[in-house]
């Protein structure tokens, strides 16, 4: 019986478990979870803070997911990988493997800001523990400063709003969601949310002085609770120290293999192939983690498969403003405004490179499929694609085969 060890207990690991079991029904799988919790969904932390879901439902496939899958869970931190002996050492014990997955994820990035140690209530917002700690402080009341207006900071704000209206979000960037949107879309989001959120944009943080943030402009903001949402960094240490190829993340090939034999990696920790830019990069997205993990799992179990259709994508709803995007915002832009909705599509060389939709996202997956598969736009009008996309935009024989069950798009 083949022994599989998976380090990390989140989405990539879930994908790997399901990938392995689809090939090797008698697999002996051990998961080493540094977070010391059963499998849960990290993106739900903001929804749990917001009370849109419960703490219990964060364990999104049941608290007994590992048991149901026949997987042994070790709640502890993996300290070392010995690729010669093929063992992982965690909490002083040895776990031998035939195939290893490293899905150690990332960690919130906390830069060395002067005076940060003098802040009494400071948080990051990434794990369930982070959410529980923030919630405990919010329940006592007070004014909140969130530094970072990216997706994590903005979703955090939505949750925080459940406890207080006294929130300021500061970012060095000139608009919210600087990485996930375009300047045009970011400006619309900013405008729609400006009555709800007190933004401080183009605001470079200089230092903290107790519970006061001092910005480069000289502005001072007092707060009771601080949340730092300044992005995350892959936790590459375990493999870096044994000679894995590492850039910002662990470099993997299209099978999610590292350069070390029998060692795979997936999820937030990897730099993997991205189909629009046709190069390796950090994606750090939920579907990428799951599908990358699944690809790794199948290969680990002996079924060759490659993951060549991964692209950046994001769907979220911020205070009622729905934002859906995929691909890269490069090439020629086509913009359409329909009522309150803003839609932009980016194309180059006859294929769609990216899109962003604010508002209605009906059938957005069809545009996503165009990007993933590099489908030629052909004679389709890009404005029509943005407005009324549906299955009729695919080639007729492909559509017929898919609807007739001969083929999956």
């Amino acid at each position, binding site marked *: 019986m083949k022994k599989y060890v998976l380090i990390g207990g989140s989405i990539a690991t879930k*994908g790997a478990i399901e990938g392995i079991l689809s090939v090797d029904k008698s697999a002996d799988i051990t998961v080493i979870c540094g977070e010391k919790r059963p499998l849960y*969904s990290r*993106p*739900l932390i903001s*929804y749990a803070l917001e009370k*849109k*879901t419960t703490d219990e*439902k964060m364990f*999104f*496939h049941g608290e007994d997911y590992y048991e149901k899958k026949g997987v042994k869970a070790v709640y502890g931190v993996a300290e070392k990988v010995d690729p010669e002996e093929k063992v992982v050492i965690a909490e002083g014990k040895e776990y031998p493997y035939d195939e290893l997955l490293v899905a150690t994820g990332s960690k919130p990035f906390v830069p060395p800001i002067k005076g940060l140690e003098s802040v009494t209530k400071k948080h990051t917002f990434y794990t369930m523990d982070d959410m529980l700690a923030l919630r405990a402080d919010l329940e006592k009341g007070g004014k909140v400063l969130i530094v970072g207006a990216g997706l994590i900071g903005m979703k955090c704000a939505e949750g925080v709003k459940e406890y207080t209206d006294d929130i300021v979000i500061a970012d060095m960037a000139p608009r919210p969601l600087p990485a996930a949107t375009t300047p045009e879309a970011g400006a619309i989001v900013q405008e729609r949310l400006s009555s709800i959120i007190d933004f401080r944009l183009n605001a470079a943080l200089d230092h903290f002085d107790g519970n006061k943030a001092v910005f480069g402009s000289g502005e001072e903001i007092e707060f009771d609770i601080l949340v730092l949402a300044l992005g995350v960094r892959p936790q590459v240490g375990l493999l870096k120290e044994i000679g894995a190829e590492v850039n910002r993340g662990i470099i993997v090939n299209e099978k999610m293999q590292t350069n070390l034999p029998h060692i795979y990696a997936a999820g937030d920790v990897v730099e993997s192939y991205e189909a629009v830019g046709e190069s390796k990069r950090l994606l750090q997205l*939920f*579907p990428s983690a*799951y*599908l990358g993990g*699944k690809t790794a799992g199948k290969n680990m179990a002996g079924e060759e498969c490659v993951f060549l259709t991964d692209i950046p*994508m*994001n*769907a*979220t*709803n911020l205070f009622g403003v*729905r934002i*859906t995007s*995929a691909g890269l915002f490069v090439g020629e832009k086509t913009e359409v405004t329909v009522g309150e909705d803003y839609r932009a599509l980016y194309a180059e060389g006859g294929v769609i490179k990216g899109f962003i939709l604010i508002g209605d*996202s*009906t*059938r*957005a*997956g*069809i545009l*996503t*499929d165009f990007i993933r598969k590099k489908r030629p736009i052909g004679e389709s009008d890009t404005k029509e694609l943005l407005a009324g*996309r*549906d*299955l*009729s935009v695919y080639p*007729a024989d492909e*559509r*017929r085969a*898919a*609807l*007739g*069950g001969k083929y*999956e*798009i």
Partner: protein
Amino acid sequence: MKKIYVKEEWCLGCHLCEFECAYANSGIGNIVLALKDKEIDPNVKVLSDGKITFAVSCRHCDEPLCISACISGALSKDETGAVMVDKSKCVGCGSCVMVCPYGAVRITKEGTANKCQLCMNNSCGEPLCVKKCPNGAIVYEEK
């Protein structure tokens, strides 16, 4: 598993499947009470490429992208392989809509995901769109 398949050459474009779907999922035992003066939001949609019409509903893919992207566990496969929705878990993020290549999942006015569940989640027990299609353009079979 048994799935819904579409024989588009037989589709009349009558949209009856849409109404039967809305009725099947209304929870109301009388079609008039269920649909009269109501705007329907069915799980099957009749579309056209300008020449031919066809009914589109969830394909219940072998490896569904919607489930891969679902952050809340609201979408999952049941023991038969059908992709089911648990509305009580859905947070309405729209990730499923972002990835479904068929455009067969949507966020309803309630703010949660919905799609064809083969009438397994209502009292019909078999897809009503198939049963009521007047021209045999939608079938429910094992392939």
